[in-house]
């Protein structure tokens, strides 16, 4: 009974984690860099949603796309202003890519957190729910309407993304660039444009997950920390840049966290995901679903 509850909740949170992490995974897959500001994409999305819905009194269902747009916009800006030098010009930058990316995104996250803190204020807001069902019983499990809707929407989003990547021309280009940037551009794919597209998608997904969770986690300026760390774990767990890997890893993490915290210890719950990660890396350095490429 309890186990069933835990499973259900774990899966739901798994979906949320997945939505957060995929964007990071995509950037990872293509640029092989850590985006430290990923959590802040989430935060911006959540705030856009909350503010548009509460302050402008727009229906939450309209606030959702607004959040998406804000995320995409932010992603686009970041790519345009900060990421581009890494693969355009600055030939000598090949070797200092990692550090540049980390430092610049670290600065960005610091900037965004404190900007929001000063402009909107430190108080945490509870976003308006998408539907006003404060709680209902779905069979044996209790849910808030928001939780249910959010879970459904994020599943749909992920399916949509998967189709987009698999079917659409853009998606194919993304795959190409991810596998071999140079090769892709030789094949006449505009790698730069594709990258900025990836950043937009990544930002959009993070922002959307922020918006969907806003009514559940009461965003405050530093809300980004928790999705960020989870996403890092998931991305490594799933195998760098493997989107499917990320999704599965997210579900696994969600469920195992739920069980761990009840049956072992609540205190170390957040350390737990990281411990799984360490164990997995011991046995499969390439992550759960990443495949090892040929060196040389």
């Amino acid at each position: 009974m309890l186990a069933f509850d835990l499973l259900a909740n774990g899966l739901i949170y798994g979906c949320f984690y997945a939505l957060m992490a995929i964007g990071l995974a995509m950037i990872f897959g293509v640029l092989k860099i850590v985006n430290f500001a990923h959590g802040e994409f989430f935060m911006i999305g959540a705030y856009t949603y909350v503010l548009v819905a509460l302050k402008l009194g727009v229906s939450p269902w309209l606030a959702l796309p607004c959040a998406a747009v804000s995320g995409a916009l932010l992603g686009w800006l970041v790519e345009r202003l900060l990421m581009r030098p890494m693969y355009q010009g600055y030939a000598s930058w090949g070797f200092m890519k990692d550090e540049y990316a980390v430092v610049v995104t670290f600065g960005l996250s610091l900037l965004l957190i404190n900007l929001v803190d000063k402009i909107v204020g430190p108080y945490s807001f509870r976003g308006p729910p998408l539907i006003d069902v404060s709680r209902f019983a779905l069979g044996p499990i209790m849910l808030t309407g928001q939780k249910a809707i959010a879970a459904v929407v994020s599943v749909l989003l992920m399916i949509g993304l998967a189709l987009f990547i698999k079917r659409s021309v853009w998606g194919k280009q993304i795959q190409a660039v991810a596998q071999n940037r140079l090769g892709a551009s030789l094949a006449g794919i505009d790698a730069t444009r594709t990258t900025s597209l990836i950043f937009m998608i990544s930002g959009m997904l993070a922002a959307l997950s922020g918006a969907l969770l806003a009514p559940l986690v009461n965003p405050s300026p530093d809300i980004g920390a928790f999705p960020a760390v989870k996403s890092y774990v998931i991305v490594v767990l799933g195998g760098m840049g493997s989107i499917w890997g990320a999704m599965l890893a997210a579900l696994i993490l969600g469920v195992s966290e739920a069980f761990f915290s009840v049956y072992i210890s609540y205190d170390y719950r957040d350390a737990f995901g990281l411990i799984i990660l360490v164990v997995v890396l011991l046995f499969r350095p390439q992550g759960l679903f990443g495949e090892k490429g040929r060196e040389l």
Partner: protein
Amino acid sequence: MMFRCLRYLAGLMGFAFLLSPAFAADPILIGVSLTQSPPGSVVQGTQVKDGMEILKDMVNAKGGVLGRPIKILYEDNQGIPEKGRAATEKLISSDKVVAMAGGHQSSVCLAEIEVAHRYKVPYVNTNCWSDDVRKRGYPEVFNTSPYNTLVSSSMATTLATMGVKRVVAFAENTDYGIGQAKLTGELLKAKAPQIEYKYETLDRASKDFTAAVLPLRANPPDVIVMSMLPPAAYLLMNQVYEQGVAPTAKTLMYDGGGLADYPDFWQNVKEGGKYLLSFALYHPQMKQTPLASDIAAEYKKRTGGDINRLVLQAADSLELVIQGIESAKSTDSDKLIKAMQTMNFKSIRGVSDFSNKPGFGYQQWLEIPYVNYELTAEKQPIAQTVLIQAPGQKFDASKIVHPAK
């Protein structure tokens, strides 16, 4: 002609003289280290600042202290002990403040009082509940803040009089939370050994407590005690409600952090907040000193919100310093400390004197007035809440309202 000029000049000078005399003298500096940015509780920091500012302006308008205006220097400590230590260091040793005040997070306080102790500068604790702050026994540290022992014993009494059987407490993983939960347990064992009590520590940074709540669904306790602060506390309440564990005919939530008068309380908890049983240090029905009412009015004017206990506590801790300076007739820290120890302090929240017996009561204002009330409707302002325990009276369990189911 010349003569007329002189007249004008004299007139001007006279006019200049009429301008508030206080500002002729150089100001008395008082240091405040509080949280103005995450990860600390900025909500608390903001209110502390409001309280300080209001009282300061009032005092300065009346010509300041010893004919000198009060100037408060704020430092942001982000709720991080290390930063608090540095901030205090700066305020004391480079800005040369005569006293420190405003501490509102136990972890940070514990770091800061070390510095104050080293430099022998008075430190007024505004809102650090952890008893350890007192147990260090530093003569520089004065506590106008409530303390865990007070809260826990009151909560223990409450639970005992409610005649409950099983109690589960959720404590945030800070010295405040854990300290309170532990203490409540011990006191319960003494007062009402028949009550079955256990507590669970929750990571205040965590966003999803469902996993901690779910085990309660099968067999809910009679009361869920919360020793937590926002925003974690809000999330917990929502998730407890979502899982249908409380509030129910059987189970109520009991808040030991004085949440209900936080300005952002209702915007974060909806139905979850209804039927919340709350330990509180402020209620409009408490006897207010005139000064307190003035401050409340001013606060309303400035922020449009209702006054709450933290604002008053902040003002109170500043008031203590001011009265100290007045009775010491000096800003010299030794004299100041002496004065604060000996004088009897007319607090904004009623007369109060400091005990100096070692332990949790060291230089602590012991009889801080408090009440217990229950929120009986959504978005309910404190004034309309039902007092279960009026100030200074017994806890009356019969007034508690349970939801129908």
